[in-house]
């Protein structure tokens, strides 16, 4: 149960989740004499189940199976999988597919980012328990956010056939490409969204966001010609550069005793890293579109910026990138003459990284000559950020130990939620139990 207590130097704070359908997500924090002696974050990872589920399936089933990992970012899972399988088979999609995939994926960014900014981050920074309690006071902003999110959903449904588990993306391209008129119908809404995202920028820039300066290595895709989403080199803010093929050599996933989730670190240094919108904005500042530059100015976001709480501003900036890019690509769009390439499977391995709304998403497939999946490896962004979330909590908690338990739990949830992890919702109803710990 949740209750307020005065601060004592020794305490045990457990934030276990209440009975949940989607698995385990909990924070354990033990403090002695004002020092953290134990801090463990546990997050359940559905992709691990899917890796085994994919073995023995035909490659053509993969784009139908992987989007079920996540109802918020199904396109991300489809795009990493499809590109990896195309690499394994040596398939080049027809002209126009790259652009159409980009619109589909950017629409998912709009939907995911607007969801996070309005329903998850804003209540945190404005001090509301949830979006529901915030709604009475911030109705106009919330309606605007939901409208923008809806634009992303509708565009995803238009191209993907359905919005939650898109059905049109296939290995080689699309089973069916939308008509030009169908996409052009979105231009007025995108034009309106260009104005609305500036209002979102002004709104979020008024939030009282605590500064949290600390060094961090941010990792994301970089592309020479465009704001990266489906392809690019992996770069870090500390000068690393590698391709998807090298991912499993550069990054080591470690088992940790307290969690069934794996923790990703750099294999050479053992250090955690941070993926997501803030990494992308830092690494691709030169590719910000005009509206995004305006949003960055209004939200006072600059580069380099590694303060994790700048992630919300980065999401607003990226939404502006997505709006501008969708409008540009739709204006130039003509349906591909052939929506997909003819795919002939062959034995091999494919590895690919795309930028999910939450950060880089790695897929690797080993495929038999008849197209049967022999093994699959999926490393989602939340898994890569887990160790970094714990690190942030270790750095953040000492500064707020004077708060009562309820406030402390809320602030810890805020640090975790800022990464927009797959438990972002669950942390809304984490329950705080406080147990007195006797001095040793």
């Amino acid at each position: 149960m949740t209750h307020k207590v005065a601060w004592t130097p020794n305490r045990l704070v457990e934030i276990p989740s209440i009975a949940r359908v989607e698995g385990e997500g909990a924070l354990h924090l033990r403090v002695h004499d004002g020092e953290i002696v134990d801090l463990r974050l546990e997050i359940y990872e559905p992709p691990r189940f899917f890796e085994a589920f994919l073995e023995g399936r035909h490659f053509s089933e993969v784009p139908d199976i992987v989007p079920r990992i996540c109802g918020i970012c199904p396109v991300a899972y489809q795009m990493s999988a499809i590109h990896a399988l195309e690499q394994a088979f040596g398939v080049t999609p027809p002209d126009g597919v790259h652009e159409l995939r980009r619109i589909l994926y950017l629409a998912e960014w709009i939907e995911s980012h607007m969801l996070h900014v309005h329903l998850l981050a804003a209540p945190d920074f404005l001090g509301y328990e949830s979006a529901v309690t915030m709604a009475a006071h911030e109705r106009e902003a919330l309606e605007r956010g939901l409208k923008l999110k809806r634009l992303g959903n509708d565009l995803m449904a238009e191209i993907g056939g359905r919005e939650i588990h898109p059905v049109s993306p296939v290995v080689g391209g699309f089973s069916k490409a939308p008509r030009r008129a169908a996409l052009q119908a979105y231009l007025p809404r995108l034009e309106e969204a260009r104005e609305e995202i500036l209002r979102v920028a002004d709104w979020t820039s008024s939030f009282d966001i605590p500064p949290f300066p600390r060094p961090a290595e941010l990792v994301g895709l970089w592309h020479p010609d465009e704001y990266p989403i489906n392809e690019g080199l992996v770069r870090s803010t500390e000068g690393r550069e590698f391709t998807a093929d090298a991912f499993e050599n550069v990054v080591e996933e470690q088992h940790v005793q307290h969690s069934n989730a794996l923790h990703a670190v750099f294999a050479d240094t053992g250090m955690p890293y941070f993926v997501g919108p803030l990494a992308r904005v830092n690494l691709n500042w030169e590719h910000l579109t005009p509206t995004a530059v305006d949003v960055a100015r209004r939200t006072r976001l600059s580069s380099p910026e590694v303060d994790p709480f700048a992630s919300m501003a980065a999401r607003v900036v990226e939404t502006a990138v997505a709006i501008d890019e969708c409008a540009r690509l739709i204006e130039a769009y003509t349906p591909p003459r052939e929506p997909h390439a003819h795919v002939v499977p062959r034995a091999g391995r494919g590895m690919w990284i795309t930028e999910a709304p939450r950060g880089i998403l790695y897929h690797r497939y080993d495929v038999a000559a008849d197209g049967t999946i022999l093994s699959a490896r999926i490393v989602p962004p939340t898994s890569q950020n887990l160790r970094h979330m714990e690190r942030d909590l270790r750095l953040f908690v000492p500064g707020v130990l004077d708060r009562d338990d309820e406030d402390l739990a809320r602030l810890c949830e805020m640090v975790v939620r800022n990464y927009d992890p797959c438990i972002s919702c669950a942390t809304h109803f984490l329950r705080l139990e406080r147990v007195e710990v006797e001095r040793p």
Partner: protein
Amino acid sequence: MSARTEPREVRLARIAATKALKGDTATPARVRVIGCGNGDRGDDALGLIAVRALRRRLRDRNDVEVLEAATGLQVLDVLEGASAVIVVDAVHSPCARPSGAAIRVEAGPGGLPAELATSVSTHGLGVGEAIALAGALGRLPRTVFLGLQVTSVAPGGLLSIQVADAMPAFVDALEREVRSLLAEVAS
């Protein structure tokens, strides 16, 4: 490969919902039934299974719209635009209830009763929060929630025996609810 061949009625319902959202529907559905869940997680599929059975029974009616939703946010998007809504979902309630027990509650202006107000989703909002948010934004039509207590929602699991046994009576109850709401909104 079943996901790629969308049944005709699913496609028509989706198109109708999209039209309703865009406000260009000629005759808006008077009663909308929203089945929620994840078809790959055991009893969590029960909302989807129930509304698919209902869809077969009511296929000739044009005043009832049957939709499926995977997330609370999808529910939020389709709550508007109907005179009355029935939300069908799996229930994992902290109250002691036998598996397969049926639950029926009416949403007030603040959403569902506390027991069902916080539901579960990996992201964003659960169904309970979506209904509460619609209420807070003044978008909530007359809304009835129907559910069954789950046994297991393990990934890749099948429907439990308890829930499967309860399903025929549950679909009957759902159909009665639809006809009752139709009569109510017609008067």
